[in-house]
């Protein structure tokens, strides 16, 4: 077997290995309301997968079906090779959960709680090492109710991974974090996925977070997955054009949308005497894509040009500077 063939075999194996999470045509109906109208998902081992969507889109329902906390109305679901509705203790031990609304065990001390939860698992992490990993070593003797919001969430993460889960659910994990805590949390999640091969399913409202962390993103709108792919793929799918901004000699600010920003910038330079002031090329951001999807959903139109409406809102991230 040539090295090339070996690589091809490996790739094939990686691609066709059984996904950690697989959902086919999952529907959920409450009374006469269809919350999920046929959700398909595949999440692979070691992947950080983000599920985005507005409130009421069915994110929570989808995740709770995968967690085994909710019965679906129809469809096929497999999580770590089992149907979550029939997941036993051995299956539970392979899953970690970090929810946003836990306020439990307030009177327990941090280290005491972690040590206690380690006893439920066959091969737990060392509680002291885990405290260090989430940066709570100094708080080990403190009562849980005396932790700050960010510390509490990090403790929840520690509790979520104490049993060395293969799959970790993170439900809006950084809500209420300050930027530094958020950065530390992102580093932690990436370490878990990259170094330990933990598969992570993240739900979030924070598009920058999804873009920063996720290998792939699915957008759930109106009970269906409307788009799924890498952040870059999603941006392309929206058929959005890049925006080029520059300041002309007379001081006026120009903006132009183009599918080929390089061509435009080159032409600008050809007609200029020197450097162009304030030149900026902005690629379509995930936020553009997201709002574009929502827009298309509420409009019912295909809306290829609809990206312009999102123009004013994308001032924060992913600005690619040229010149």
């Amino acid at each position, binding site marked *: 077997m040539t090295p090339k063939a070996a690589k091809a075999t490996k790739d094939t194996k990686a691609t066709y290995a059984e996904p950690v999470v697989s959902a086919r045509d999952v529907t959920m109906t409450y009374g006469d309301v269809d919350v999920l109208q046929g959700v398909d998902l595949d999440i692979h081992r070691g992947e950080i997968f983000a599920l985005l969507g507005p409130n009421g889109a069915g994110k929570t329902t989808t995740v709770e079906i995968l967690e085994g906390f909710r019965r679906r109305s129809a469809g096929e679901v497999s999580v770590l090779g089992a149907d979550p509705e029939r997941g036993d203790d051995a299956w539970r031990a392979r899953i970690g959960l970090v929810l946003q609304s836990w306020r*439990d*065990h307030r009177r327990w001390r941090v280290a005491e709680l972690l040590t206690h939860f380690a006893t*439920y698992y066959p091969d737990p992490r060392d509680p002291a090492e885990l405290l260090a990993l989430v940066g709570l070593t100094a708080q080990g003797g403190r009562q849980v109710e005396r932790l700050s919001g960010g510390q509490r969430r990090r403790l929840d993460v520690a509790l979520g991974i104490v049993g060395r889960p293969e799959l970790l659910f993170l439900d809006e994990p950084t809500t209420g974090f300050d930027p530094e805590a958020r950065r530390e949390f992102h580093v932690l999640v990436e370490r878990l996925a990259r170094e330990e091969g933990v598969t992570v399913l993240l739900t979030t409202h924070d598009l920058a977070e999804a873009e920063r962390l996720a290998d792939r993103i699915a957008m759930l709108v109106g009970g269906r997955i409307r788009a799924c792919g890498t952040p870059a793929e999603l941006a392309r799918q929206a058929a959005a054009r890049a925006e080029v901004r520059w300041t002309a000699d007379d001081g006026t600010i120009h903006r132009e949308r183009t599918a080929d920003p390089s061509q435009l910038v080159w032409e600008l330079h050809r007609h200029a005497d020197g450097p162009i002031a304030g030149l900026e090329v902005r690629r379509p951001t995930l936020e553009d894509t997201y709002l574009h999807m929502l827009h298309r959903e509420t409009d019912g139109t295909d809306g290829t040009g609809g990206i312009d409406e999102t123009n004013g809102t994308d001032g924060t991230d992913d600005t690619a500077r040229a010149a």
Partner: protein
Amino acid sequence: MTNVWRAGLQRGRIELRHLLRSPKEMSGHLTNVVVALVIAVYVTGDVPGTHVPTAHLVLAGFAAYLLFQIGLVNLPQILVTEREEGTLLRLRATPGGIPAYLVAKSMLVVVMAAGTLALLLAVAALLVDGPLPHGPGGWLTLLWVTTLGLLAVVPLGAAVGAVLPNPREALALIMLPTMALLFTSGTVFPSTSLPVPVQQVAAVFPLKWMAQGLRSALLPDTARTAEAAGSWELPMVALVLTAWAVLGFLLAVPLLRRAARRESGSRLSARHRKAAQSGALPA
């Protein structure tokens, strides 16, 4: 399975330690004992027709009431609070978590009950010449009535805790019937002074029988002439308490299972929002 027991007992020990170190909860339990002692001091005279001090009857009745309260007031409150905080959900998401939780709660309730009972009887005996069982037979009766009494009220309390809406409404919903039973079950004064229909209704519930059983264990045999039936009716005590124990288990198992199954992140969030709106929970 051994893991569940280990985790459950560890959990029970830790919860017990937290209870002992919580001034608020400890003062709640101690207040009950103090109230019983104060009443025993102020009650004078003998039980009509006997040479048994009324104070002894009151203390035996209070002992029964405290057991009843631990099973049907304290336990449901703990369950509802822990459900609301997400403890139940976390244990549901943990392998073996729910069985360990039940082991821990059983241990906690048994220790709380035994501790309260021992404290009440010991302090009463030391300070106010309170009653203690006469001979091995009396101790044996004390043991089986206490055990069966707990079996009658603890599963029932677990079932109540599984269905009550939230900790704020729970207390109001439980306390009213509990107080009604306290005054109609012959715990603090002989029920013979009450109208017969009231006695008959109270006789359906376990408190009357727990109190009667404990009186038989703690008071001299001559005191039975003051009982409504003129005897301790111990077979009836055993029968009624066993019936409640069976009923409690039949209700508690499916209700607890349902309560645990219904827990999910979104339900927890919804409750927290509601609680925050009513200003009852710190954010």
